[in-house]
């Protein structure tokens, strides 16, 4: 990572920390949701963007994490931060177990299997034998935690900072994971499964583990989301949530860590913008936004930024007076180095 990227990240972090101090509580709440979705999208991106396994059912893992947090806080009085660990662990296991039989399925068929998971989730959560825990159709109400150590923050601001801290930890962890052997193995499996297998990559293990880790991320996001909204109900976690997540990573940028943040901003704010543009058919406007983004930036916002940076870098390298003629620029360059 070069110096320019580090500076960007530092500035972004500074802005993120300053945010709650300058905007209203309502906006802080919205941005907390953006951070939550960013973690969820990173999870999905690990699986779909980096590892090529399509999941149309990640809303289910989000739901499991949310309910885990809600039940632990409401029925067992577990402190909110501990529920994240529980939600993450549970989803890691569930994700891994789901990933195992899914190994046999490719592309469309995996999509269907995950789609089935996403669609069945509300029914499972409403199942009357589980009602004692899940609250059935009534859902579970939870209380927002107060800032610890008597910090001079209100609960909204505290939750924002807490979520930000969790997000940074998880993003760093993912970045570390992806830039080493594991990352290369995942991408190899995505791009050329058979070759990766031939090269000695244990594809079965990697694919299942990726499912698990991806579910873990989204589960932790679900737990944070539940704490932010203070309410969980089965029909909040329907198939449309899973589809929204998929849209988020494509718009944000597949196989990109900052893409998760762009995607989260998109899925949180664009529906609101669409609502303001047209009260009559807001989702049609949202659809048009989707089309626009995909046409202009087929590789997502992150992809577009990458292309833009590359173009700027190329222009800078070639110098201003050779902007239109790369060949000429090349010879000029080589003549420079030669002379």
């Amino acid at each position, binding site marked *: 990572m070069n110096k320019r990227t580090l500076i960007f990240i530092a500035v972004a972090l500074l802005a993120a920390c300053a945010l709650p101090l300058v905007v*209203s*509580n*309502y906006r802080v*709440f*919205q941005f907390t*949701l953006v951070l939550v979705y960013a973690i969820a999208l990173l999870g999905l991106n690990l699986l779909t963007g980096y590892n090529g396994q399509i999941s149309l059912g990640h809303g289910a893992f989000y739901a499991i994490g949310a309910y885990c947090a809600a039940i632990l806080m409401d029925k067992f009085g577990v402190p909110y931060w501990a529920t994240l660990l529980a939600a993450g662990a549970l989803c890691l296991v569930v994700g891994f177990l789901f990933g195992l039989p899914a190994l046999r399925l490719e592309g469309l068929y995996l999509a269907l299997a995950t789609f089935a998971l996403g*669609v069945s989730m*509300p*029914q499972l959560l*409403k199942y009357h034998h589980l009602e004692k825990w899940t609250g*059935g*159709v*009534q*859902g579970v*109400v939870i209380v927002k935690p107060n800032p610890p150590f008597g910090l001079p923050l209100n609960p909204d601001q505290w939750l924002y900072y807490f979520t930000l801290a969790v997000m940074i930890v998880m993003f760093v962890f993912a970045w570390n994971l992806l830039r080493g052997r594991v990352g290369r193995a995942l991408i190899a499996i995505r791009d050329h499964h058979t070759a990766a297998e031939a090269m000695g990559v244990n594809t079965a293990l990697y694919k299942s583990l990726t499912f698990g880790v991806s579910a873990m991320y989204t589960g932790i996001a679900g737990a944070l*989301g539940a704490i932010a*909204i*203070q*309410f969980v*109900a089965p*029909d*909040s976690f329907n198939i*449309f949530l899973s589809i929204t997540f998929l849209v988020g990573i494509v718009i944000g940028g597949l196989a990109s860590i900052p893409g998760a943040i762009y995607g989260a901003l998109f899925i949180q704010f664009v529906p609101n913008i669409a*609502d303001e543009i047209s*009260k009559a058919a*807001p*989702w049609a406007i949202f659809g048009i936004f989707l089309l626009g983004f995909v046409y202009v930036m087929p590789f997502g916002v992150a992809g577009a930024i990458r292309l833009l940076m590359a173009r700027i870098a190329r222009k800078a390298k070639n110098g201003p007076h050779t902007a239109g003629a790369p060949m000429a620029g090349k010879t000029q360059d080589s003549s420079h180095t030669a002379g």
Partner: protein
Amino acid sequence: MKRTFAPVTLIVAAALAASPVLAQKKYDPGASDKEIKIGNINPYSGPASAYGTIGKSIGAYFKKINDDGGVNGRKINYISYDDGYSPPKAVEMARKLVEQDEVLLIFQPLGTPSNSAIQKYMNAKKVPQLFVATGATKWNDPKNFPWTMGWQPNYQTEGYIYAQHILKNTPNAKIGVLYQNDDYGKDYLKGFKDGLGAKTNMIVKEVSYEVTDPTVDSQMVQLQSSGADTFFNITTPKFAAMAIRKAYDSGWKPAHYLNNVSASPGSVLVPAGLDKSVGLISTQYLKDPTDKAWANDPAVLDWNAFMKKYYPDGNLADASNFYGWAVAQTLVQVLKQSGDNLTRENVMKQAASLKDFVLSAALPGIKINTSATDFAPFESVQLIRFDGKQWVRFGEVMGK
């Protein structure tokens, strides 16, 4: 002579102090000399989008009120947001209304899940969650949630009434129930079972369906196969129409109790087939604007004129538009009663002080009553039976 001044001054001073006319105007955020900001959350998209027309009809009514001069000289500024029937979105919109738009109160938020999600927040923030658009029983809890109030007769009461009717008229009935697998369906079922009391074993089959199911044919076949001769139909309009039609087509002719939510001839019975709907029993608390019996009723004529002028796109066969008109009138009454004291506390107080308030839209004999311990405005209903052309009232007004 000096002595007479003092008592006069005292009397005048006392009169001034006691006179409410000269009392201070009191405003909470959202209220001012010029306007009253009213917030609303409705499902304009998503699975419950059919009910979005309620939010629109309410908006149309407020426009009429504004055209007629407003409430006590103040215009109503109506801000309505879409939550897509999703609780997280409802929470977001509630926060937007309260914290960003600074409305005086949130009126008629729709849907049990959405209202459940925002109930704690509204009460913590001490903002009225007034006349919620759901029949769930939990909104009548002034002790724990003093800022939340329902409006329509609750589902459990209605279910209870059907059960009582069955016990009285067909005590040996074998009952089959079809219910939507969510809060609304389960609430009705609970009231129904409570009404049966010790005789819940009269229910021989209980089947559920999801809103995402394409048809309920399989469930109807299951009920028919169970040998039930009485059917309690807890479904929303689309599924109610399918159930009524399938029962008839399969040759199953049970005593058929239909929940009030789907009793609209225009939205349900006509698609099902009027000839297939003969004998249906339901309850009603408002007049049915599509019913020919009320064709010349002043309230219905009023409403038709209102729709034509202020909501011409609205469907005249959709009872939701009549409902929206009626509930909006209730809010206007509460605001009128609040006078110049437009604090949230006073608005709740006025809402809890409606004594025998008669809405022209309500059936004769059915009045709105609220008190500090009774946050359920409508508690009585009338049993009705469909004769193939219209709903006919029978029996007396039941409930409280």
